[in-house]
């Protein structure tokens, strides 16, 4: 890449990379409550505040519900707002997640993905944020600490776009990414500040017919969070959906713009395809498992197997066209779900992928592997066996079972 900025290589775990990115983005307000495996993010950030390295107002709240409420309130004044949470903390925010997205407040939140109780478990799976699928937040899931750093910077650019104006979750797998020390290339602070820029505000028309920026401002008083009865509520929800549709374009745009300064991009920002063009068998997954899967794909390719991988980076808005195009020529697809939808037909990601492929001209065989719940490790050998299953399915044109639990003692 030509216009790359000179970067420094540092050793950060995923959480530290997230905190450092938020610092460089010149965040105005952080309101947060600590929870494993996210704690390092707010701990590190509060250090920046204590050391005077940032001008951020750091609000220590008594719960995550209050943290999200404070973030919403800060965001609607026009402040750049950031928070982080996980598991039970995110679950406690549930109510306010909808108020935040409905209020079109572009809060950026890092989620160090962790299992939900009960039984109590602090380890990584994606049940927490996947359960917030319909909360109106954009969902981006990253593969490693480097992408966590890059995605937080991109997240402000996406969420604060006037056509989008929606909050965004950046999900990083608990412990696998959050606590693992990795090499991370970081941009100089001025380059990040220049790239992210000042927060832009959409315009709204007041009761008096004046066009003013969308923010709480004593000079231009406006009602925020009003009630909307059956005659208007639906229209506002449709508006929100338009923000999501705009995000589909914006995420791609941001991905390629960011590549120009950093030299790094993640597929087209929505899906990250690996050796998929001529693949006969492929795995679809979210998050860090993709890293290990790339190694397996390389091994299988050397052995002459046409294996491929599609990492779904943006879960909401769902990149329907990209998924359909990427997967159309595959014979057998395994979807990997690090969360479970009790009583459903397979996991949440499986549902999306099968649903998307329903209208495709060629129907690939699609099976689901629910795996890694409560932080159960997934070894390269386990992943290789999934491809072996797929080769068998592709050969026979038949799958014995649609949904399997991978790595479970039967």
């Amino acid at each position, binding site marked *: 890449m030509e216009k790359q900025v000179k970067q420094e290589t540092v050793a950060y775990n995923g959480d530290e990379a997230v905190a450092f990115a938020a610092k460089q983005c010149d965040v105005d307000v952080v309101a947060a409550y600590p929870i494993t495996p996210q704690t390092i993010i707010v701990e590190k950030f509060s250090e920046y505040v204590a050391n005077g390295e940032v001008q951020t107002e750091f609000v220590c709240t008594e719960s995550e519900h209050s943290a999200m409420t404070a973030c919403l309130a800060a965001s609607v004044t026009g402040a750049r707002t950031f928070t982080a949470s996980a598991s039970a903390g995110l679950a406690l925010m549930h109510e306010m997640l909808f108020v935040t997205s409905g209020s079109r407040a572009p809060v950026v939140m890092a989620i160090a993905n962790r299992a939900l109780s009960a039984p109590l478990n602090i380890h990584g799976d994606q049940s927490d944020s996947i359960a917030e699928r319909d909360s109106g937040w954009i969902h981006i899931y990253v593969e490693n600490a480097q992408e966590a750093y890059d995605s937080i910077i991109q997240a402000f650019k996406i969420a604060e776009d006037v056509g989008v104006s929606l909050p965004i979750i950046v999900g990083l797998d608990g412990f696998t990414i959050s606590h693992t020390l990795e090499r991370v290339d970081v941009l100089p602070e001025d380059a990040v500040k220049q790239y992210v820029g000042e927060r832009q505000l959409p315009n709204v*028309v007041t*009761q008096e017919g004046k066009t003013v920026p*969308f923010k709480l401002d004593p000079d231009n008083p406006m009602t925020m969070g*009003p009630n909307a009865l059956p005659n*208007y509520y*639906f229209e*506002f929800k449709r*508006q929100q959906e338009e923000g999501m549709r705009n995000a589909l374009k914006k995420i791609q745009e941001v991905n390629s713009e960011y590549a120009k300064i950093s030299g790094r991009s993640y597929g087209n920002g929505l899906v990250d395809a690996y050796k998929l063009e001529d693949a006969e068998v492929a795995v679809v997954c979210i998050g860090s498992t993709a890293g290990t899967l790339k190694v397996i794909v390389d091994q299988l390719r050397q052995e002459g197997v046409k294996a491929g991988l599609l990492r779904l980076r943006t879960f909401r808005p769902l990149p329907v066209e990209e998924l359909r195009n990427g997967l159309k020529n595959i014979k057998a697809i395994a979807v990997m779900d690090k969360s479970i939808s009790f009583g459903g037909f397979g996991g949440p990601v499986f549902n999306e992928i099968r649903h998307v492929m329903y209208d495709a001209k060629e129907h690939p065989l699609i099976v689901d592997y629910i795996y890694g719940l409560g932080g159960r490790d997934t070894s390269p050998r386990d992943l290789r066996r999934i491809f072996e299953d797929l080769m068998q399915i592709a050969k026979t044109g038949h799958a014995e079972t649609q949904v399997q639990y991978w790595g479970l003692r039967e």
Partner: protein
Amino acid sequence: MSQEKSWKEISMAGVCSKSSVGFLTGDWKTYMPVRDLEKCTLCLTCVMFCPEGAIKWVPEKGQIWFDMDFCKGCGICANECPTKAITMKMEKE
């Protein structure tokens, strides 16, 4: 509600879509307060208790006035009136 707007025409997140002054909550009511002028002593207890601010004291006229556009018919005024000058009647009657 006339001339309802499409989702493309309304301001973001419900902001300023309508001032609350233009939102006539009075049409929620089933019962309406009726004042007996002979019993009323103009003590203004009802003015203070009305949760909607729908009972107005008009000093120029030395009278109170019920704003039916905003009275939800809750009956608190009738309950609090020390002289029982206010009774709640079905609005339709």
